[in-house]
Each structure stands twice: as C-alpha cells, then as structure tokens.
C-alpha cells in the first residue's frame, strides 16, 4: 500500500470516524451539562432578539477598543473567508463532500481558490507573528492555538503545492496534503477548532443569559 493509498483509504476512514466521535462527544457533553441554577429573579424576560443581538454585537469589534483591534478583527474575517472558500469551493473538495453527503454545489475557478488559500496563509502567519510578539496575546495563547495554526497552515500549504505540482512528485504531495488534512480533522473536536461549531450557539446562549439579567452586551 502506497502512502497515497493509505491517505485515500484507511487514513480517511479513521479521521472521519474520530471526527464524528469527537464532535458528538463534545456537543453532547456541552448540551447535557448541568447549568448552574440562577437564583436571582430575572430582570427581564429574555427573548430571541436578545440572543440574536448578542450574536451580532459579538461579531463586531468592541466599540471602545475598535481603534486598536480593527486590523486584527477584520483580518480575522478575511482569513476565515479565505479558508472556507478554499475548503468548500474547490472542485476536488466538493467531489469528496458529494461522495459523503450525497450532494454537491458549484465550484469556484481554481485561480480564485489559489488566491484565497494564499491569502489565508499570509494572514494567518501575520496574525501568528502578532500573537507571538504581543505580550497580552502571547500570555493568553496556549499550545492548542499553535497546534491549530500549524495544522491549518500545513494543510493549506500542501494543498497549494499539490495543486500547482510544485515540490515533490504529485502523488506524494497529494498524500501529504491528505494526511495533513486528516490530522486537522482528527484534531478538530479536541482543540479550539471546535469553535467552528460552538461559536454561534454559545453567543446565543450568552445573549439569553444576559437578556435574563437585563444586561445589554
């Protein structure tokens, strides 16, 4: 069995199984946890509007600090757009999703994907340098952050190299790309990358709690 055979077969199966297991473990554990009882009477009947409001407000830079965090905030958006476009809109990726989900969607031209992936790498590296050089950012960063950054950049970079037929022979580069994506998939439920699934439900929940207490945040 070649490395590519492993990556396209057992590697893919193992990583998908771990992903499904890990995600459902994290979600079930979170949803079923016992929430602390709120002993204070509600100031306000929390509404869906409160929750949605928090989801929107928390998606924008905090007004008071806007001047200082604008660049970081919006480059974060750009990086996510670059990543999701590369992952979700590249024709070969869509073929894989289609084989799993049973349906696909139109792809973007490969040149657009190439630009998005390159942009995503550049921004993420820039943000990582900032993370390493800014004292506060460095203080609140853990190994989890660096592992997630490394795995994501590696998967993007090997993808670009494989697509462009650069570096190693195509089949080896493709195998390395698949394995790096599989490592990312395996890491996904156990590290901070799970925020992909948790971010909006948690903001919704925070909005509901704050609404109940009459806090506008």
């Amino acid at each position, binding site marked *: 069995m*070649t490395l*590519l*055979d492993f*990556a*396209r*077969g057992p*590697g*893919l*199966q193992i990583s*998908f*199984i*771990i992903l*499904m*297991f*890990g*995600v*459902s*473990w*994290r*979600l*079930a*554990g*979170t*949803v*079923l*946890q*016992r929430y602390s009882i709120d002993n204070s009477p509600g100031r306000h009947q929390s509404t869906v509007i409160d929750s949605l409001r928090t989801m929107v407000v928390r998606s924008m830079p905090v007004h008071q600090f806007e001047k200082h965090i604008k660049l970081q905030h919006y480059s974060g958006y750009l990086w996510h757009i670059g990543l999701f476009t590369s992952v979700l809109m590249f*024709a*070969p*990726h869509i*073929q*894989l999703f*289609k*084989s*799993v989900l049973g349906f696909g969607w139109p*792809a*973007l*031209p*490969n*040149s657009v*994907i190439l630009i998005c992936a390159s942009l995503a790498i550049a921004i993420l590296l820039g943000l990582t340098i900032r993370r390493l050089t800014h004292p506060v950012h460095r203080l609140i960063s853990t190994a989890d952050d660096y592992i997630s950054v490394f795995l994501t950049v590696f998967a993007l970079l090997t993808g670009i190299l494989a697509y462009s*037929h650069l570096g190693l022979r*195509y*089949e080896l580069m*493709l195998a390395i790309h*698949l394995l790096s994506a599989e490592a990312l998939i395996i890491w996904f439920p156990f590290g901070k990358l799970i925020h992909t699934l948790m971010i909006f439900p948690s903001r919704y929940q925070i909005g509901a709690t704050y609404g109940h207490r009459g806090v506008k945040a």
Partner: protein
Amino acid sequence: MGDKRSLGDLLFSQGVSRRGFMKYCATLTSLMALPPAMISRVAMALEQARRPSVIWLSFQECTGCTESLTRAHAPTIESLIFDAISLDYHHTLQAAAGDAAESARLSAMQENKGSYLLVVDGSIPLGNAGFSTIAGVSNVDMLRETAKDAAAIIAVGSCAAFGGLPHAKPNPTGAVSVEEVITDKPIINIPGCPPIPIVISGVLAHYLTFGTIPELDSLKRPIVFYGQTIHDRCYRRPFYDKGQYAETFDDEGARKGWCLYKLGCKGPLTYNACATLKWNAGTSFPIGSGHGCLGCSEPNFWDKGSFYAPVSVGQWGSREALFAAAAGGAVLGLGSALAVHRRQKKAAREEKESAS
C-alpha cells in the same frame, strides 16, 4: 538467429537509403528526448549495432501487449523483427510450434548466452504451478530458466511490470510481477494496459543503439516516457485550471472538451506518455476520445476504487460507520455529563450538610 551482420549492413542490403536511415535516426533521437546534436551519434551507433537475440515469453496475459506492438507505426514490427532485432521466440508471432518452438528458445539461449534480451508480458502465477504452463513447464520455472543468461529483461505491460489484472484482489492465482521473481538482472518495466507501441519499440531501439538500458524511475520505468503525468501534458489542462469540468459523458462540458476530472480521470496520478505520443499513429488517446484516464500504467490500478470516482474521492468508509461513531461519542458525552451532575449534586449536598 545467429546473424552477425551489423544493423547498418542489414538495412542497406535491404535497400534502405542513407537518407531514409538518417530520417529514422532523427525520429528515434527525438523519441528518446535526446538533443538533435545526438542524431549523428545515434546513426553511427545504430549502423554498427549487432542484432540482439530477443526471446519473448508470454505468461498470464491477454495478448493485448503484442497486439499493441504489432500496430506500432514507427519503427514497425516488421522493421523490428526483420531488420533490427532477431525475435527468436514469441508464442503468438512465431510459425514454429510444440517441440520445434521450445528448441528454438533453448538454442537461442545457448547461442547468445549472456547477451540476449528477454521480453516478458503477463504475470507469473505462484499459487499453483499448474495455473499456467507452456509445454508442461510452469511460468515461474520458464522465467527463471530463461532469465538466467539474459543480458536484461523488459517487462512489457502492467501484468509483467506490476502483476496487473491477474494480481487484482483477491489474486486467485497468486500472480506476481517479473521483478518479484527475478532479482539479479537489469529489469526495465514498460507498464500500460497495454503500453504505447512506440514506447515498447523505443526502448528496444534504445538498447539497440546504445547497448544500455535507458534511465529509469523508482518503478523501473524509462523516465523519458514515464517522467511526466498525463495531467502534465493533457490538452484539457486549461479547463482543469479554470475549473471547467464535464459532469457527464454527454453534457455541454463534455461536448466542449472540458476536463474529465469529475468523471474519474486518473491523469493527475498517472505517469505515461499517452498525452504526447498518443495511439494509432498519433491519432488520439483515451482522454482525446472523451474518456478519463484509467491510470493503467500505475501499480494496482484495478484496486484503487471506481474508475469513475474523482481522484479526490477517497474510500472514506460507510455512513453506518460514521453514525455508529457519532452515537458512541454521544453516549460518552452523556456519560460524562451524568458524572458531572453526580459530582455537583454530591458537592451541593455536602455544602448543605456542613451549613446545617
């Protein structure tokens, strides 16, 4: 057999003009990707070359490789057999049969000990000696016996090179490639199902010209023919780059000649020269005819999933396995949530007790 004249003598005695000979050498030189300055050296070497004796053994095969070679347009099989090489033994092409055929093989081996070329097509069954025999001799014994005094071995076709179709799961005959049986001789693999005729004859011509085997890749394939993927040289590549793919074999994209990636083309993973040398005297090749590349010159191409599944689609398992994994994760999540509930309740109880 036993003709000691040089190839030049032979060709000129048969009325081949010097001009025609030089033209042939020029074709050969470009075919072998040598610089034009090498034409005269190729001509000189070829002119003085002795006709090597060639023994061709066919084992578990479909005769497609011989069919492919006999349809070669340059050099033709006629020129290869009668002008260039001395094909002393070939089941399909020889007139002799039975004992006469076998004694031709044995005497060619004896007369050209250490200098004959052995060409093999077909895989070798190791499961049971009786699965495939020639004149009562098992394939593996005949290969070992004939390879012993050969100068080099050319494994023609994916069956001889990698085991091919007979080697596909579950490999009922225990089929293996030539290099799994013979380990002490130079082996050139010319895979393909079948290989491109000019590639077969080109390798023979290279040997004839230089007396050496061409530079090989890690799978023992001549780099000059197998150095690039089909995808590298495919004329549909601009459509791949633009993301324009045929979705079915008869849609608008297919009619416009768009890329066949989504229809399972294995061109990106297949090292071969089909996209440049093409087939049928350079007329076309599978992708040119609207069908994706099957990857037939790569090892185990039969066992790599559907021919019609895109390269990016791996064998990711089954939905049932994923649902089972998700259910297992949910049970674990529930278990850990319950454990936390219990701990919290206990802590609350203890707090109450200590307060009262």
